[in-house]
């Protein structure tokens, strides 16, 4: 029988390499977790004392040094709603066109994907300036929740297009001939077969988008503005949570503690959205592959 074993010395060095890889990986994981834990600990330590129902619902007082973040939370949610209201249909539609209608590699398809990818690499401050000029001035929306939400929609659009597109492209290729062979129209195939099958992927894209939108500051300063009043309509200016934190930390003397509390709320919000989305899409996946 031919010997397949390597010389003992070489094997020993491989074993050493193996072990050091495991140790290095473990260290990196530990550092990553440590940073996260430290951040949370600090935020909780500095921000937790002021968190209360009162803080979440009261008006902003004394430039943010006292009172609560009620109007800011409401504005944030409204901005998010405007953002998703535009970005989800636009992103899904664009991805559907690319995946189902455009010819792979054709000039229009390449232009659209190229444009979307370029959009993804634009810094958010540029989106802010664009939003101010286009939505604020050209479309006369001024500093408003609508203007901020639409600007954010442009910003998260590439993410939605990309995730939806990959979800659609990852579907089994034989679903389309299966549907066609049953005499189904393309629109029924898309609406009743392809989109439901791609839904978990789309939800993940939307979640990433929500996370990005909630934490965005630069794109909102010039578009939805600073106002801390309770928003009454979408054309009112409204301050997003991230802008509030930025303002407290930078422009308001002794605003630090309130900034920490607001940051804690923002973090909790993002965590809730993320875990809800992950749970939902896992449940869908599970349901789809459920055995008896």
């Amino acid at each position, binding site marked *: 029988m031919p010997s397949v074993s390597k010389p003992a010395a070489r094997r020993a060095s491989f074993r050493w390499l193996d072990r050091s890889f495991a140790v290095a990986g473990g260290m990196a994981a530990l550092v990553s977790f440590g940073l996260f834990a430290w951040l949370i600990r600090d935020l909780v330590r500095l921000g937790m004392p002021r968190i209360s129902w009162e803080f979440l619902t009261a008006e902003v007082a004394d430039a943010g040094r006292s009172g609560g973040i009620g109007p800011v939370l409401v504005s944030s949610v409204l901005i998010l709603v405007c953002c998703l209201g535009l970005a989800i249909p636009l992103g899904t539609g664009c991805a559907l066109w690319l995946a189902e209608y455009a010819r792979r590699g054709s000039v229009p398809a390449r232009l659209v994907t190229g444009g979307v990818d370029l959009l993804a690499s634009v810094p958010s401050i540029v989106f802010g300036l664009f939003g101010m000029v286009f939505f604020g001035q050209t479309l006369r929306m001024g500093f408003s929740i609508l203007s901020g939400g639409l600007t954010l929609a442009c910003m998260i659009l590439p993410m939605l297009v990309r995730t939806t597109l990959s979800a659609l492209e990852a579907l089994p290729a*034989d*679903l389309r001939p*299966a549907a*066609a*062979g049953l*005499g189904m129209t393309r629109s029924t195939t898309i609406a009743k077969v392809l989109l439901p099958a791609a839904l978990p992927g789309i939800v993940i894209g939307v979640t990433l988008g929500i996370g990005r939108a909630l934490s965005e500051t630069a794109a909102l300063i010039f578009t939805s503005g600073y106002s801390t009043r309770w928003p009454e309509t979408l054309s009112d200016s409204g301050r997003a949570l991230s802008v509030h934190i930025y303002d407290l930390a930078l422009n308001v003397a002794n605003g630090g503690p309130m900034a920490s509390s607001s940051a804690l709320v923002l973090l909790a919000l993002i965590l809730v959205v993320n875990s809800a989305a992950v749970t939902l899409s896992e449940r869908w996946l599970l349901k789809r592959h459920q055995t*008896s």
Partner: protein
Amino acid sequence: MNAPSISLPFPADVPAGSPATGDATACLRVTGLTVQYRGFTALRDITIDIPEGEITALVGPSGCGKSSFLHSLNRLTDLVPGCRVTGSIHLADGTEVTHPKADVLTLRGRVGIVFQRPNPFPQSIRRNFEIPLREHGWSKEDIPDRMETVLRQVGLWNEVHDRLHKSAIALSGGQLQRLCIARALALEPAVILFDEPCSALDPLASGVVEDLIHSLRGQLTIVIVTHNLAQARRIADHAAVFWVRDGAGTMVEHGPAARVFSSPADPDAGLYLSGARG
């Protein structure tokens, strides 16, 4: 579940692929069919009558155009960019399959297809029937009965009746293929095309599906592509042997299965069917 008896729009005495039983009428009449993909000729000049209510097996080595032939029978070739089909295909009621303005969606309801790999929708078993049946105008109330009928017909009802709301994906390969056959049957087609329906299945499941196809004989017209010559011998009434000639797929032999398998006229077909070649 029946190909309604119909008066033929073409004279019945036109010479055609000699029917096995003598009295079978043509359900599909294919004349001079040529299929090209961007200039490459996959299939050249096929003329054959497919007898109603019987099983026609298409055999031959890979790449000889059997699947192209099958897919042109219900216009699935439309899905392939750059695919050009010339010649004509008529259904017994006079519908011209190849007509540019043919109602392709209705046609595919009448000429169903089952693929090599089972391809259920990744949704519940029930939805797999609801989606296509609703598309073809069935009312919601009629769907459960229809679903039960065809699931019983494919012998799947007892296995799945208590989990119709669960995902179809969880079924085994053989069950999935029977589900896909049931889904095709649900639309009450006159013809079902089978594109190597057993070749992705284990031998046991393959046997079950083969028996099922055989049991459909007489209820509708069946065209089956198979690489399994023994299977073709067992179930086919008619056989057509495809072969590559001059760089294009063509039909070198067709007729009653018994004759084609026992004494093929074409030398290539003879070697292939005897297992000496291919």
